[in-house]
């Protein structure tokens, strides 16, 4: 249990994970569920337990689309997407932990790809 | 004039109606919700029992803040008592404001029997507000001051 990290994630997300009643609706609604190793309800529960390193090291943090379906549908107002974002930020803010670097970009481009995708990806994956 | 004396302990009189707010105060006790000891509660059957005389009397005798709590409008045990309270107290508070008494020394809050948490939070906030204002600058007579 990493107490400091847990506090940082709670503060940064502004989410009260204790409100979760473990219904799993977030995971029932998540469009990225199958791509994730840890699912939205697990994010909430593992942050509560303080098991944050595991989440930070998992590819799951980069699979969340921030589509807010879990936020909108959570019956307890827990906002799992904000927890995911806080964990992802905790990961990419570490020195040299950017998930996306500018040198990768040219290979990803095609003629129609909107700028929006690039700036959003950088905002999500890098610091 | 604001006095930021942290040691200042204001005297606060709270009038609570028997049916909602007094029960709400009891509930905040039952739930062990803390609020400052400065608050002393006087039980009245209904907020409409609170005569402006009582409020002025409190200020006369040294109170630094007066708060009245009653049932939410529409929920009065006596149907309409708190509606009269609302008019009377609005006018009285407006008059006290007109006379230069700080607005935060007087308050009217609706607290139901179920709102123990609201009662405690209200009392905490009110005490804090009054504490910030410092001791009540009473409506004293200038002639007395000169002597």
């Amino acid at each position, binding site marked *: 249990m990493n107490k400091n990290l847990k506090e940082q994630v709670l503060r940064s997300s502004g989410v009260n994970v204790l409100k979760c009643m473990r219904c799993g609706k977030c995971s029932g609604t998540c469009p990225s569920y199958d791509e994730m190793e840890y699912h939205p309800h697990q994010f909430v529960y593992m942050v509560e337990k303080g098991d944050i390193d595991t989440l930070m090291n998992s590819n799951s943090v980069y699979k969340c689309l921030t589509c807010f379906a879990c936020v909108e549908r959570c019956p307890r107002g827990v906002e799992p997407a904000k927890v995911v974002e806080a964990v992802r930020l905790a990961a990419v803010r570490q020195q040299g932990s950017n998930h996306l670097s500018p040198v990768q970009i040219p290979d990803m481009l095609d003629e129609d790809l909107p700028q929006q995708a690039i700036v959003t990806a950088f905002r999500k994956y890098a610091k | 004039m604001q006095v930021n004396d942290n040691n200042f302990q204001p005297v606060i009189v709270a009038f609570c109606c028997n049916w909602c707010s007094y029960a709400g105060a009891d509930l905040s006790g039952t739930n062990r919700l803390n609020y400052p000891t400065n608050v002393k509660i006087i039980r009245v059957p209904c907020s409409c029992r609170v005569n402006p005389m009582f409020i002025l009397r409190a200020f006369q005798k040294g109170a630094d803040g007066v708060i009245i709590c009653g049932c939410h409008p529409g929920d009065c045990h006596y149907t309409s008592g708190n*509606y009269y309270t609302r*008019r009377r107290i609005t006018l009285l508070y*407006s008059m006290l404001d007109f006379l*230069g008494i700080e607005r935060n020394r007087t308050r009217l809050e609706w607290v139901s029997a179920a709102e123990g948490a609201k009662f405690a939070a209200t009392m905490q906030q009110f005490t804090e507000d009054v504490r910030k204002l410092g001791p009540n600058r009473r*409506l004293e007579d200038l002639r007395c001051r000169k002597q």
Partner: protein
Amino acid sequence: MQETMIKRAKELLADGTVSRVIGWKKGEFAYDTTPAVFETAEELDRDFAFDDFTAANVSKYLVKESRKEGKILAFLKPCDTYSFNQLIKEHRVIRENVYIIGIPGGPKLDAEKIKAKGITGILGIKNENYTLKIETLYGTETMPFYEAICGKCESCKSKKHVIYDELIGEDGDILDSNRFDTVEKLENMTAQERFDFWREQLSKCIRCNACRNVCPACTCEKCVFDNPKSGIENKAASDSFEENLFHIIRAFHVAGRCTDCGECSRVCPQNIPLHLLNRKFIKDINELYGEYQAGADTVSRSPITDYTPDDCEPSVVHERGVE
């Protein structure tokens, strides 16, 4: 005007319609015309006066007078009729025992304002085309009429009689008065300025009770301030808060009932603008609960004994004006 009134009063006495007349009589000086009851034609001829100094509101006397044997004739100025109506609403006067003749209102004069000009030894005062010719022991002085009128007449709210049995002269209209200007000015001051203003004013109070005794709304059988059982009785101030408590409670007790006749300030020997307290309540009532004029009728419910479920909360006080 005075002659017409005396003539009509004598007629009503003679035909038995009334047994007494309430009006004003001449005083020792030219400016101290005071309310009086007359029972005979002789008394009327000798003492009855109606001049520029008949500002006093006689309606309060009718609380007692209307309960006596026989009917009484009352001469009421427009502002006085509001007070009388309000007393009817509160069952304080017996309407059937009063014969009301509506008479024209002011502006009336305030002797204090003449004296304030340094004019002393007054023997007689004449109004010539709105210039006052003042005969004094030391010769004749002049001053503009409007500089000497009563405070209450400066912001006259109505020239209309709201109740009467007959009229002498013509009825007027409800005026668009500026009576809330001073209240508004005070409201726009800072809390400290208001505090200082009222400290200054209320500290002058000598608790002579003139304001209460003259007030047509203060007709309690026994005033709480005179009643040892009330818990707030106090003839002499026990502490420096006392006078304030008296004036606030008094204003609150007449809130929704005060017709804004202005008698309290007129009679105050210390010139405290007490009417501003009453007007503050009237202004708040008008703004928060809708326009209401006490005494305009005899049936409507006073706003303070009324409510609507969606009345404003007291926090409205915090949202208005200046802290």
